[in-house]
């Protein structure tokens, strides 16, 4: 293989290889440079941010921006709230999804095809923002944290991928457990779920990132500002930069630049911490099953 490769490695081919390495290195850097700049800015002084156009290493390090944010009750409360909602929400969403995926993985379940067809239908057609809002309102969920969790509880794509995963597990495992007298619930809990840990962990992280990053749900369902999540606060803090003077609230001074940088970092760090675990699994082709489901 290597000799044939060498024989046909033309000069143009080698030039392309060099160019390709250079281009892709550039692309990789572009993907994280904006974030690294914000990180550097969050640790820099106000003066440095406003006078140096671009830097990845502050001349003078300071944690003043972080100290200022962490001393704000509003911010600390929003952070704690978001952590709690994400944690509970992930458990609820993953639980509902796995519980529904398991019966649907049984080829002989009556009504299975109908349910799957309905699930697929919801992927191509949705009633839209307003009717969903009215349902949440009618259920009395407005201004409750459940409004951030329940309306998005089961992602149809995730449901179908988890179902497909359950379906390809060897049936013998389940049958031998049943011969030992286990009921479906016990089979699920003691046989299926332990075998599915990596898949479930991956989707738990996807759900968690989804809740953490969600802006639309709190925007729609939480009018009580004391209940706002981190993304809402982040928006509040950084929006001032994009608005012209006439749109800025005049009674509130715009937050200092450094604070904006630091808030972005704090809102991102948890996702970045989850990323290595996510990456370990998603690349293995589990998501690929979603295209033809």
């Amino acid at each position, binding site marked *: 293989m290597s000799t044939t490769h060498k024989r046909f490695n033309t000069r143009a081919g080698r030039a392309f290889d060099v160019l390709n390495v250079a281009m892709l290195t550039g*692309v990789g850097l572009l993907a994280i440079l904006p*974030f690294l700049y*914000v990180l550097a800015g969050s640790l820099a002084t106000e003066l440095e941010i406003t006078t140096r156009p671009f830097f990845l290493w502050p001349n003078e390090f300071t944690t003043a921006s972080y100290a200022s944010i962490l001393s704000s009750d509003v911010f600390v409360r929003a952070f704690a709230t978001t952590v709690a909602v994400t944690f509970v929400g992930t458990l609820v969403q993953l639980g509902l999804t796995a519980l*529904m995926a*398991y019966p649907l993985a049984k080829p002989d379940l009556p009504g299975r095809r109908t349910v799957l067809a309905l699930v697929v239908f919801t992927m191509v057609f949705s009633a839209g923002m307003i009717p969903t809002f009215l349902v949440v309102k009618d259920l009395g969920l407005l201004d409750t944290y459940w409004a951030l969790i329940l309306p998005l509880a089961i992602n149809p794509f995730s449901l179908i991928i988890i179902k497909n995963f359950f379906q390809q597990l060897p049936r013998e495992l389940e049958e031998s457990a049943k011969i030992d007298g286990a009921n479906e619930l016990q089979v699920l809990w003691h046989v299926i779920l332990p075998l599915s840990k990596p898949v479930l962990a991956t989707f738990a992280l996807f759900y968690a990132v989804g809740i953490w990053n969600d802006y639309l749900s709190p925007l729609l369902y939480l009018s009580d500002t004391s209940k706002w999540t981190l993304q809402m606060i982040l*928006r509040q803090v950084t929006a001032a930069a994009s608005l012209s003077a006439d749109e800025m609230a005049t009674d509130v001074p715009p937050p200092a630049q450094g604070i904006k940088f630091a808030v972005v970092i704090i*809102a991102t760090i948890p996702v970045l911490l989850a990323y290595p675990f996510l990456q370990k699994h998603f690349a293995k082709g589990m998501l690929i099953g979603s295209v033809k489901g």
Partner: protein
Amino acid sequence: MTTALAADREPPLARGPGRLRRLRRDAVRYRWLFLLMLPGLVYFALFRFWPMYGARIAFKNYIPFLGIDGSEWVGFAHFQAFLSNPDFPRLLVNTLVIAALSLLIAFPLTIVLALLLNELRLQILKRTVQTLVYIPHFLSWTVVVSITALLFAIDTGPLWTFFAGLFGTDANMLADPDWFRPLVLMQMVWKDTGWGTIIFLAALAGVDQEQYEAAIIDGAGRWQRVRHITIPSILPTITVLLILHTGQILNTGFEQIYLMSNSLNRTVADVFDTYVYFAGIEQGAYSYSTAVGLFKAIVGLVLIFGTNWLAKRFNQQGIF
């Protein structure tokens, strides 16, 4: 357990009205499975199908106090009002322009990036670049828009400085209608180009390596191998994604556009998704905005089935 076993032994459809007996037997045999599925079914009924039923307010003058059934039936009046609204052409153009940017620029870039990654022989670099380019996908739109605001902050932002020098302008790019689409495109490309390559790289990983070896022996050059082996092998993936994309043409994604729009760039920033929000949530025109949303959903449904049908006619795999 004993009842389930007894039910198993029962001869199927022995006597009586078969359907009812079978139903009763299934209900017993599958009771645990039905029980496990129940919360999920309730979820779909409540949050996915009940809104579809509630969407009939699009044909009424819904007044919350009177309830949906008590509200007056107006037929297609809201749809007509929307289609003849002077805002409609502007919304349609804005929506289609953003869809075009995504389909004609961001999507091909994804394919190009996947092909370049596939050609990379340095495996360590390939893995590193992949790790890096997937990251932005996991950042929220709030974070992406906030980072944009910092990078393009007038007078101080690094990208503001760069582009201001490049084009000799001192515009506030974040509020300038001319800059709205370029900024939105940059964000789309930055956030999801890398992530989009996963599916192509997976398709490419499945390509039989012997094909390449045979091509090399036949004297095929680098580009010929890409042209005749690599690209055809991702063509089915491209078709499927095109179908899915087409169905989403009117869905610009709410969060990005909403977060990027402000009072100064609304002429180009308003799209169907944000319009539904402003009309429905902010102004309380529930029936009208539901009609707009329904119009969008139905067009999307027609588009997705239409492209699927077309793909099959041209002997490509469809998604249904």
